[in-house]
């Protein structure tokens, strides 16, 4: 029973960390995809010469991103490095916090209230005053997006 409790707790921690990790990675992946779209976007135009022969004239959309194949490979490797770094960071933080709490839990067992003051120390209240001394109102303008 205790082993099941321990395993289920460990599974819950791992699941939570996985959700956080996947969330961070999906944000990172979304940024990569949008940059890929910008990189790959191009305009294909068909130009017709005097003899009605078409030649494909591909003009890339003017942007700052690289559009050739070597650029794509470089972006993919950068993306993998990002994934590994983010994974490493999340795993290290979650593992470190978990180990810290486990270690600390073994040091202080039973440090709870040693005196039941609610039961053994009754209060005979002779004076009670609550005086309003100040009222302050502040306002903040809310920026609204009109697009």
């Amino acid at each position, binding site marked *: 029973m205790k082993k099941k409790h321990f395993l289920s707790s460990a599974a819950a921690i791992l699941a939570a960390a996985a959700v956080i990790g996947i969330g961070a990675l999906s944000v990172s992946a979304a940024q990569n995809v949008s940059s890929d779209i910008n990189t790959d976007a191009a305009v294909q135009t068909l130009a017709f010469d005097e003899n009605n022969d078409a030649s494909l004239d591909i003009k890339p959309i003017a942007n700052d991103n690289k559009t050739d194949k070597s650029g794509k490979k470089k972006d993919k490797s950068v993306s993998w490095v990002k994934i590994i770094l983010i994974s490493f960071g*999340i795993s290290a933080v979650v593992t470190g916090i978990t180990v810290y709490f486990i270690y600390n839990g073994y040091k202080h067992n039973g440090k709870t209230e040693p005196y039941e003051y609610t039961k053994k120390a009754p209060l005979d209240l002779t004076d*009670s005053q609550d005086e309003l001394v100040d009222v302050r109102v502040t306002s903040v303008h809310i920026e609204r997006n009109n697009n």
Partner: protein
Amino acid sequence: METISYKCINCSGPLQYNAQKLKFYCEYCRSEFTEEELEKHFGKLDEQLETNEAVNEEADAQDVPEGFEDFAANTVMYTCESCGAEVIADKTTAATFCVYCHNPVVLSNRLTGTFKPNRVIPFMISEEDAQQKFFDFCKKKHFLPKNFISSAQLDMMKGVYYPYWLVDSLKDGNLFATAENIRTWTEGDYEYTETKTYKVKREGKIDFKDFPHPALEGDNSKALKYVNPYDDKDYKKFTMAYLSGFLAEKRNTERTDCQSDVDNELKVYAEKIYKSTIKGYDNVKVDSCNVKTLKESWDYAMLPVWMMTFNYEGKNFLYAMNGQTGKNYGELPVSKGKLAAFGAAMFIVLMAICILGGYFLS
């Protein structure tokens, strides 16, 4: 050194108080006796506690050989009534076992005069139950060293009566605080925040009953504090017979030594009590709390604790259990190897999950 051994009326075996049966019990012939039956046979128990003054144990100082002054100052020799052996105990020991015949012995002179306790709570948890509770406590801890829970370890658990001051204190005081209520709302393009600030005062008398403070200073004082609280319902008038079969310690701090500590602790509790009456606010900040003592009385009691010390990798660990309620306090050793293996496994699994997640998303 005068000693008392409480012996079975039938077989002269050593007697020990049994909490489950609420009687004095002989392990040899399994006879059971109430306190009244023992008094009928032996006469009034602890009569010498009523008549004797506290014994001055420094009377034999002139007999101490050179170089042993420190040892002599902290120890005393007594003669076991059962086997006649001369056994040494330290200055705070009030009850112990003869190291030769293992007969329980109460050093009666340690508990006379002003050192006589007023009250005692007998052990309500037997040694077997205490060991089982400790075993159950350790079962939940998966990172203990491999051979930590062993029968040899459990055999080192000892039942000890520790001295406590119990303070009844009537305090009169007041508390001044600043409290706030915060409200926010939105109107049009503006968000408004209203903060109402109040000056709060609470005044009244607090009657503290049986506030415990350990009367033995040493490495165990933190454990002795946090095994509390004890339940009032089991307090009994003190007789030395309750100590038979257990270890016991005599106090080494007087009221004057503890007065300032007790006053500070009671002031902290007074602040908590006054603050608990301030309700209905979002924030409360205490500006000042003043408390004075109207009336105070100090009682001296012996309270039961199951105690165990153990050594792991050169460091001493202490485990204490309330001998009445079973509340645990203590520090446990952590197997660094097990913790490191768990950390490494967790790290690898998390890395794998995050990398896989990144692969499928990208």
